[in-house]
């Protein structure tokens, strides 16, 4: 059951990701991406990372994608601009480099599997993990508190940057 659900969510996420990058219209892309976020959130749940799954929905699907959609609509891309990009456009070197990279990664994965890096079923039968907000919160405000504070500054910087970038009229 769990495995089957994983496969379903995974397939959904993969398919919507593919659809997302191939759409001409950014709005459609964004909508497909939202679906992918949901798929992944499902998988997070299956992996017992409940808090992460919730945040995924809230932050990604909720906040980030909304921001995206705002911007897309703000820009109001005209049709001819959208269609100026000849589709499909597969730059040879780009694809080749991507494929090469992926191949390397895939080989690494297979190599790792062969080498027995991943613990087999017997080894991981008894492990417990609490993926609740409480557990994460304890870790976040305990071990990682400094990093957490720094993220605050990061966000502040990002906000300031965004404000400055959008406010100043570049001529």
């Amino acid at each position: 059951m769990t495995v089957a659900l994983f496969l379903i969510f995974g397939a959904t996420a993969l398919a919507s990701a593919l659809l997302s990058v191939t759409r001409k219209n950014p709005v459609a892309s964004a909508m497909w991406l939202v679906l992918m976020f949901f798929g992944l959130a499902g998988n997070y749940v299956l992996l017992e990372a409940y808090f992460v799954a919730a945040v995924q929905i809230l932050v990604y699907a909720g906040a980030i994608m909304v921001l995206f959609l705002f911007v897309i609509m703000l820009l109001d891309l005209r049709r001819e601009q959208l269609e100026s990009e000849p589709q499909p456009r597969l730059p040879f070197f780009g694809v080749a480099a991507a494929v090469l990279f992926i191949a390397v990664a895939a080989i690494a994965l297979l190599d790792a599997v062969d080498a027995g890096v991943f613990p087999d079923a017997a080894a991981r039968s008894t492990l417990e993990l609490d993926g609740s907000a409480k557990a994460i919160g304890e870790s976040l405000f305990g071990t990682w508190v400094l990093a957490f504070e720094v993220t605050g500054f990061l966000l502040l910087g990002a906000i300031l940057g965004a404000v400055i970038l959008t406010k100043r009229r570049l001529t």
Partner: protein
Amino acid sequence: MTSAFLSPVVASGLAIPLEWVVGLGLALFAVGLLGVACRRNILIMLLSVEIMLNASNLVLVGFSRVHSEISGQVFVFFSMVVAAAEVAVGLAIVIALYRLRRSADVDDAHDLHDVDYGPVPGLKLEGEPHHHHDHDEPEAQPVGATGEA
């Protein structure tokens, strides 16, 4: 520990083979990668970057579960923060760029490239006649020194 209301669905995260999780992550990453490499619409490129981030998040969560270690999930949290910041700045740049160029095509914005001087200039060989120096023509010679004030 499993949440009670989900227990009928989720027997145990451990049932999912880690290879599959990593494989899915890799596949998503590949999709994102191709998006960045192949698309020219800057918005979609940003979206593709998000896909790649998510792919890595998935792998982190997977390993977190297998190793029974919460830090992986904390990292996902951080990753999301960074993604949010990145999107904010990235979109700000997109807006600024669009204002400037009225285009979301990244290839329209390549001002930083090297100026194209055209083909490599050929070398003029010693002894090869050429014409753009007129003082070389015997007809044009000023005879006698002009004297100087």
